[in-house]
């Protein structure tokens, strides 16, 4: 499977405007694919059901359950997302492809057991009034979604972005169709539709791995052996996913901003909708970022390390480093530019857009700040990615830890300060994290040659 950079460069080589547009569209869909598809699908399933599922409370319950499942599963699987990706990358680097499949199976078993062990007691406590079938469906959905994330990260590690996208489209497509068919069964029907969709999606991804990386062993736990996974990456993945959700969780469970939805689950009618819409607005930024990193940056990154290893002159090594710096700078500028346009659009036309979607204009100020925040989140992701390329794991750990802490604290503080400040917790924590990240990246890039040579 060719890397994404290769595909993109192929499109760019046509050197036409349509080729460029295709490349950006492709990059946009791929980079934000699973994430955006999930949000869109959740929204659509909800909208679909509105005329049928009465009262609308049920839709809200469904969306809340699903959002909670997605958040909880991302946080739980976050523990192994980065660490297992790195584990796979190391195996591929050492040409131990035979270890990929059995260890994926090992990890899936582990995740399934842990997820079920956590979810079963929780559904008993959290959904006191609900039917047994609903509770079982929730457990099944949670476990399956956890597994889907594992499959997704493995396939992104293998750079099989296309396969991810196809499977997500297929899975969510099935979920949508089934949701329409099962909509009379209330919550249970919608969840079943979602579950079947996720299951197909999961199996589809497994099929790709089984076919592409056959192995004589079915299941192994090599990744659990000491020294095979980086502990710092376990924490990084955990911090990052908590960091992304902590502001939402704060708003869901702070008494001033939330209301009960189903069982003990709560939602924040004021906060949730703008946030999810804002996430849709990051697609252009993500596309630009992916293009920059996977084509230009990687090119100079490879040349830099080739020059280091294969005996380039120091002048050439410096030059390639400078190019890396330039591309990183331009990439960040480009993200800022394109997100700036998006922000402007939202500021100018946001009200109208909300009206079209039938959403109250009361959400507008929050939407505006959230679009700014998610824009910074793209920059933040970009920085983390550069740090990962430079193998500065401690930097990423520090930044994600900082972001998580700030986002939790500042979001809580924003609620104390009043509605006018809602969303600023998320935005300010990202601005701080991005600033710190830039200072650190500046220092690291400045010392890159020194650290590459002297710290070994």
């Amino acid at each position: 499977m060719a890397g994404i950079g290769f595909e993109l460069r192929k499109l760019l080589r046509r050197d036409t405007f349509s080729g460029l547009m295709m490349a950006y569209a492709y990059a946009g869909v791929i980079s934000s694919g699973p994430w955006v598809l999930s949000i869109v699908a959740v929204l659509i399933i909800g909208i679909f059901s509105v005329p049928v599922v009465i009262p609308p409370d049920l839709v809200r319950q469904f969306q809340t359950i699903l959002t909670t499942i997605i958040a909880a599963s991302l946080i739980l699987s976050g523990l192994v997302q980065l660490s297992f990706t790195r584990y796979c990358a190391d195996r591929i680097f050492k040409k131990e492809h035979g270890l990929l499949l059995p260890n994926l199976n090992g990890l899936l078993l582990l995740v399934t057991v842990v997820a079920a062990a956590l979810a079963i007691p929780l559904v008993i406590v959290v959904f006191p009034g609900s039917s047994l079938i609903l509770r079982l469906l929730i457990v099944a959905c949670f476990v399956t979604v956890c597994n889907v994330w594992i499959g997704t990260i493995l396939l992104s590690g293998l750079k099989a972005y296309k396969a991810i996208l196809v499977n997500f489209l297929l899975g969510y497509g099935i979920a949508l169709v089934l949701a329409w068919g099962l909509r009379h069964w209330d919550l249970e029907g919608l969840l079943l539709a979602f579950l079947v969709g996720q299951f197909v999606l999961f199996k589809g991804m497994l099929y790709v791995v089984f076919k592409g990386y056959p192995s004589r062993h079915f299941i192994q736990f090599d990744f659990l052996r000491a020294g095979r996974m980086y502990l710092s990456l376990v924490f990084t993945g955990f911090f990052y996913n908590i960091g992304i959700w902590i502001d939402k969780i704060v708003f869901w469970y702070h008494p001033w901003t939330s209301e009960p939805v189903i069982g003990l689950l709560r939602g924040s009618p004021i906060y949730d909708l703008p946030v999810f819409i804002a996430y849709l607005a990051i697609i252009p930024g993500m596309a630009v970022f992916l293009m920059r990193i996977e084509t230009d940056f990687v090119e100079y990154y490879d040349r830099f390390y080739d020059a280091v290893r294969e005996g380039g002159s120091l002048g050439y090594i410096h030059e390639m480093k400078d190019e890396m710096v330039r591309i990183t700078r331009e990439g960040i500028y480009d993200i800022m530019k394109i997100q700036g346009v998006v922000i402007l659009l939202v500021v100018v036309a946001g009200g109208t857009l909300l009206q079209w979607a039938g959403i109250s204009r009361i959400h507008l100020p929050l939407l505006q700040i959230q679009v700014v925040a998610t824009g910074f989140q793209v920059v933040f992701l970009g920085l983390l990615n550069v740090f990962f390329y430079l193998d500065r794991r401690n930097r990423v750990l520090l930044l994600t830890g900082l972001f998580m802490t700030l986002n939790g604290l500042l979001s809580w503080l924003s609620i104390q300060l009043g509605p006018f400040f809602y969303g600023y917790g998320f935005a300010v924590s990202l601005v701080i994290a991005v600033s710190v990240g830039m200072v650190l990246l500046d220092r690291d890039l400045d010392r890159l040659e020194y650290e590459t040579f002297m710290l070994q």
Partner: protein
Amino acid sequence: MAKVKFPKASQVDIMLLLEGTFPYVSGGVSSWVNQIVRGFPQWRFGAVFLGSQREDYEEFKYDLPDNLVHLEEHYLHGGQPKPVVTPCQGNPEGFDAIRRLHEWFLNHQQGILPEEMKSLAFYRDSPHGVDFIQFLHGERSWDFIAEKYRSRCTDPSFVDYFWTVRNMHTPVWQLAEIAANLIPARLYHTVSTGYAGFLGALLHHATGRTLLLSEHGIYTKERRIDILHNEWILDRRNPLQKDLTEVSYYRELWIRFFETLGRFCYDAAGTTISLFEGARQREIADGAPPERTRVIPNGIDLSRFSPLRRQRPAVPPPIIALLGRVVPIKDVKTFIRSLRILSSHIPDVQGWIVGPTDEAPHYAEECRRLAESLAVADRIFFKGFMDPRELFPQIGLLALTSISEGLPLVALEGYAAGIPLVATDVGSCRQLVEGVGEEDEALGHAGAVVPINNPQAVAEACLTLLSDQDVWQKAQAAAVARVERFYTQKRMFAEYRQLYEEGLAPWQA
């Protein structure tokens, strides 16, 4: 030889610093060390053996003398544990001193060796020095390396330059550590410059005790040959960049490094002893202060060899022996080629190659094949190790085709046993054959001197000596007279006793 335990003592009189010789390697220098230690039973000796990697050496080639009461070994290129990677800045004063050292070396006479670099603390824990961590991981170290690469390196590959510099200098800090932990001694005696000489210099500066330097070959010159032959030194110039007449920058770098170590040692040595005048001149050119140099030729124990003369057949047998390790520096191939020429003049001529073939097995194999391809395999004999006293009565001539020699002991032993010598014009060979000074020259030629890498000249010289009884007899007479007058062990011991006593004296009170 049985596995010998390393003797340990808490202090010694004389500490020998030995790089790649006694007791692991046999050969001229090692035998000489053995001879010296046994020659002075009144003093307690210690020895520090420095090697590259443990696996390069097998077992002891010598029984340790009883008065060698302390022996330790250190390997400079074996994977020693490195300090934990610690990013740091580095002391500006320390790197300034290193910069001055480089300038001192590059501009030869100008400037002086930076004082602070003489102290052990500079390498270990000085607040103004450069310790191992600073060298390995310091930012100033990086700046310095990058600066030197930019201003001096002619090879494009930076990574090669970096690792060459790092591998080359790492032993410096290891040696400082060795010096700091070494048991006390009243006198230090190094048998080469190089790493051992540097260690000696550090010890001298740290303790104030006298350092003697005895150079048999010229270390830097031998290193140069070694480096020019070595494949492990990288040369990444592509064919267009490569000028075959130009030595790769890394080879040059290594040579300069050893020359710097040499200067460091010459600067510290109380007396620099060479085996012959040519070597002394070379040392002076390399930076040894002339007033502190001195020539003490090797001497042998005549009583072990002179009786052999009576065992010799009346007519010298047409057997020519090359006594030495089968290594490129001995240029055994020229010897084999000369045998090819000789065989058409003396039908029953034989060439014996007496010495270990395991040091450079590739080269030994090439020599064997050469003998086969020249169709002289039936008259070239690889004898391996032989007791010279068993060998000498059976041969007619000794040949040395080396491209580098100091003062070869085998030549002296051969003389004592009454065997003339055909030798290349390297080291002291001309002096050994033709004599130096009026009194010596009057004794006549004890054989012949030939140019290096010239099989024809070797063959002609051997032919003259072997085919004319009269010439041979005269050469034998000159050989015996010369060794008995100038190259006795007694004479050598007397001179070293004086040096040792002087060196030990201030501390005996």
